[in-house]
């Protein structure tokens, strides 16, 4: 087949990129080779628009064993044990086919973890959808939500990994472009880590797992294109997952790794057989010779092009020590899985593909994996935003502060997500100390005395108004969540969800957000050990809010952390960090502005990172000394919503604020660096607050059955816990069930 300009364009390669291919090969590529280049050089696989900026992220630290560049980042947790963790997006497939899109998103990230030898022990999900009500696309948004949630449940539950936390928020901009970011974490011994670096000339290359079919061909390049109305016709591009097979693959891989016969191993994710072989080859500086006739196939008549680009799930490629293949085969046979030698490691650095005796492709591995184009796309413009900077001339006074609180706690963003997370098995493997619905999730590592706390957070609204500050706030919030459970942040992963990088005002968002993450992660000593960039999140020309999602993990001694909920009547309620300051400009990014005023303006709340860090250090000390009965950090919805979230055991509080701010600001302003703590020993906490130089006003006392919040002698809010709880718990079931069908 001759390579025409149309064919090049269909493969989403530019004429310049094509010329680069020609010069790297020293000749015109074959059709098969063009396909191989198109996926490996896609935005999804090559990070061509983001790579030069990702270099700004801090990637080293005293806990880091493996930074970016492998299948997952690795952190030492002591006693010879490590954790591997990473986040990945499956946004585009989840829009086209929510159930399978989300399910295979879970499957993909789990393989990234266990391909390194680590058994997955926790999953979290960061989900963003269009509004489930009050939107022209509400019906479809609800279908996407229910599809995604059942897809995650289906895959994670059957595989046997607990889904321990996450977030789920709604904005109109995600209506036609939901975000499904999946975080996974696994554990293994430090001396049993496996890498994807092929070595040993003459060693066999072995294919294990599911057979190859035609599903998912060009999935990687689909994820690198904007959506149009025709996108729905791409449904066959979405892969179909089989969590049972993945569970067998996990057990077989871990068992096979113990034989000592495996040299390198890599999962077949995006761009399938192509990426796994050329990446393993390029990392090891060797060549790989593959005979496609030996690849287990689900259907007959597949071309080399199709087999190389197939994204069939639950497959792995490994290099074994020559002469010890039998040990590997035996393990896979025990688990009822295909394992076949399909190629050999060579010395010449070339990826060589044969099919029916003919040479179909011959490309230097390094050209595919390392020579992909890198763009410094224009970004020296103001980042895209349409919201006004100035607050409305008149922010109306609340008609009913009680009603506003009920409206907020029953809004899709802030209401209880129990209906979602109860569909996930969050307990399997009996490690979950803190599950969904808390500040951070905590899982213990049975083999050591250490537990891992983890938090996922992002705020598209903040980042839309100011990508740099929004990104820093997301890092701060994750670290605050960890501190509130007593954990010290040690490392981070990020998922950068943005629009079309070819538009300078979008590229500016990306660059600013990365720089914000870099600054905050360096400051909070949470180096980035890996992650994912998902660009072209736009539909019909309308981009999503810039949405960096941070996943930060922390370490703590294994013990039950202080709970979120108030524990007893008559305990002092302290607001560590103080009442915060709220400006009219900063109020425009709040949930109150969104839910009650239906507006967006101004800037995200102001963050003082040094103060924030002192608050974290202080709360960790309070928890370490066992002074707190409960602890909960403030975030979306501000003080009033945070207080409401503590009222889950028929215990409320009588709160009296000494604030000069208007009621809406004091109650719902989202100033960071604040944590609610209840205690029987306020004096000792005040001493600590003094030592760490942070404010810590006593704001009230816990009491039975009511939540009352006032200022001076004025009562702002007064309601029963029963009413509050009903609004909080029934909102999502009502939205999803009354509108079902």
């Amino acid at each position, binding site marked *: 087949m001759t390579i025409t300009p149309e064919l090049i364009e269909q493969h989403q390669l530019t004429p310049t990129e094509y010329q680069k291919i020609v010069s790297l090969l020293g000749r015109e590529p074959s059709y098969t080779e063009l396909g191989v280049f198109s996926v490996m050089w896609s935005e999804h696989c090559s990070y061509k628009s983001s790579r030069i900026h990702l270099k700004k992220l801090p990637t080293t630290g005293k806990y880091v064993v493996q930074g970016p560049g492998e299948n997952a980042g690795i952190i030492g947790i002591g006693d010879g044990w490590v954790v591997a963790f990473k986040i990945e997006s499956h946004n585009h497939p989840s829009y086209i086919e929510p159930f399978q899109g989300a399910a295979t998103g879970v499957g993909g990230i789990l393989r990234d973890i266990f391909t390194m030898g680590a058994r997955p022990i926790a999953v979290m999900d960061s989900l963003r959808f269009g509004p489930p009500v009050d939107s022209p696309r509400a019906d479809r948004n609800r279908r996407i939500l229910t599809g995604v949630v059942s897809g995650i449940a289906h895959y994670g539950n059957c595989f*046997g990994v607990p889904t321990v936390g996450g977030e789920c928020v709604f904005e109109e901009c995600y209506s036609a472009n939901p975000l499904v970011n999946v975080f996974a974490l696994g554990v293994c011994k430090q001396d049993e880590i496996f890498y994807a670096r092929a070595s040993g000339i003459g060693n066999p290359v072995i294919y294990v797992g599911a057979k190859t079919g035609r599903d998912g061909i060009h999935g990687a390049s689909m994820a690198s294109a904007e959506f149009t109305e025709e996108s729905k016709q791409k449904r066959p591009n979405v892969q179909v997952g089989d969590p049972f097979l993945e*569970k067998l693959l996990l057990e077989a891989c871990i068992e096979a790794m113990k034989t000592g016969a495996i040299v390198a191993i890599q999962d077949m994710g995006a761009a399938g057989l192509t990426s796994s072989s050329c990446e393993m080859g390029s990392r090891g500086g060797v060549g790989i010779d593959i005979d496609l006739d030996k690849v287990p196939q689900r259907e007959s008549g597949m071309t080399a092009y199709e087999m190389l680009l197939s994204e069939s799930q639950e497959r792995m490629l490994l290099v074994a020590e020559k002469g010890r293949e039998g040990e590997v085969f035996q393990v896979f046979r025990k688990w009822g899985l295909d394992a076949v030698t399909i190629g050999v490691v060579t010395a010449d650095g070339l990826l060589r593909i044969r099919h029916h005796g003919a040479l179909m492709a011959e490309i230097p591995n390094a050209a595919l994996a390392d020579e992909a184009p890198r763009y410094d796309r224009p970004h020296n413009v103001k980042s895209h935003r349409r919201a006004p900077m100035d607050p409305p001339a008149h922010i109306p006074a609340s008609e009913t502060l009680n009603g506003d609180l009920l409206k907020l706690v029953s809004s899709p963003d802030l209401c209880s997500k129990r209906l979602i997370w109860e*569909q996930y098995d969050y307990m399997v493997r009996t490690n979950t100390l803190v599950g969904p619905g808390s500040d951070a999730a905590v899982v213990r590592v049975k083999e050591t005395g250490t537990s891992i706390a983890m938090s996922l957070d992002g705020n598209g609204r903040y980042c839309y108004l100011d990508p740099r500050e929004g990104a820093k706030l997301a890092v701060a919030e994750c670290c605050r969540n960890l501190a509130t459970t007593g954990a010290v942040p040690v490392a981070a992963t990020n998922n950068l969800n943005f629009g079309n990088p070819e538009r300078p005002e979008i590229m500016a968002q990306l660059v600013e957000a990365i720089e914000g993450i870099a600054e905050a992660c360096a400051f909070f000593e949470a180096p980035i050990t890996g992650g994912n960039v998902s660009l072209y999140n736009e539909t019909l020309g309308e981009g999503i809010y810039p949405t960096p999602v941070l996943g930060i993990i922390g370490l703590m001694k294994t013990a*039950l952390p202080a709970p979120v909920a108030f524990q007893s009547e008559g305990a002092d309620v302290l607001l560590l960090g103080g009442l915060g300051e709220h400006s009219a400009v900063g109020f425009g990014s709040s949930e109150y502005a969104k839910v009650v005023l239906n507006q967006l303006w101004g800037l995200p709340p102001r963050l003082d990172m040094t103060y924030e860090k002192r608050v974290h250090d202080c709360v960790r000390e309070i928890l370490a000394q066992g002074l707190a009965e409960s602890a909960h950090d403030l975030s979306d919805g501000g003080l009033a919503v945070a207080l409401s979230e503590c009222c889950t055991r028929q215990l409320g509080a009588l709160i009296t604020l000494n604030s000069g701010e208007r009621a809406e600001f004091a109650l719902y302003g989202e100033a960071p660096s604040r944590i609610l703590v209840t205690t029987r020993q306020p004096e000792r906490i005040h001493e600590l607050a003094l030592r760490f130089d942070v404010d810590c006003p006593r704001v009230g006392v816990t009491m039975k059955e009511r939540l009352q919040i006032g200022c001076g002698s004025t009562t702002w809010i007064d309601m029963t816990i029963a009413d509050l709880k009903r609004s909080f718990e029934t909102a999502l079931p009502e939205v999803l069930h009354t509108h079902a069908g």
Partner: protein
Amino acid sequence: MKVGVVVFPGSNCDHDAWYAINENLHGRAEYVWHDSTNLAGFDAIVLPGGFSYGDYLRCGAIARFSPVMSAVRKFAADGGLVAGFCNGFQILVEAGMLPGALLRNTCLTYVCREVRLRTETADSPFTSKLRKGQILRIPIGHGEGRYFADEGILDELEAEDRVVFRYLDNPNGSLRDIAGILSRERNVLGMMPHPERASDPLMGSTDGLGILESMLSAVPALTR
């Protein structure tokens, strides 16, 4: 003298049951691979939770044909103790070792939460350390846990004191709130909740230990 924890392809809670018995109770448990046909040396068998064979076709429908199941059937016929938790219960029902069926939850989704159970009988090797009427907090995690049987069977189960646990807040639509039942000889237990998930103070409840302890003490030589 030991407990065998059967590992089917797709078992997920095999490790949890193993860990609860070995580490939380200092008993002795060993894994039994699904193609094993010899259960000699075991005093009790646990069929753990999970998704055996992917739960394809119907939960437990394929596992019942697994080679180990004919051995388990014989083991039970000889009086050995067999406990099936969650997927294990589904397998026992599919294998005909316990009556009835486990249908899709009435809410139509998988549900994971801690539930309260009432102990309906202490007269079994699995509940001898519990009191009749004792309330236990034990988690469930299943999509198909709605116990169903015809009226005749339900009446018979009650008349023979074979309903071993009932839900206080029925989470799945089980008939007569049934969460667990016994075989006629009382040596086979099936229950949807997971006692192994309530076996450590760090998990928030240790109420599952009573069930596992009863089972271990039913065979005194089992504790090491």
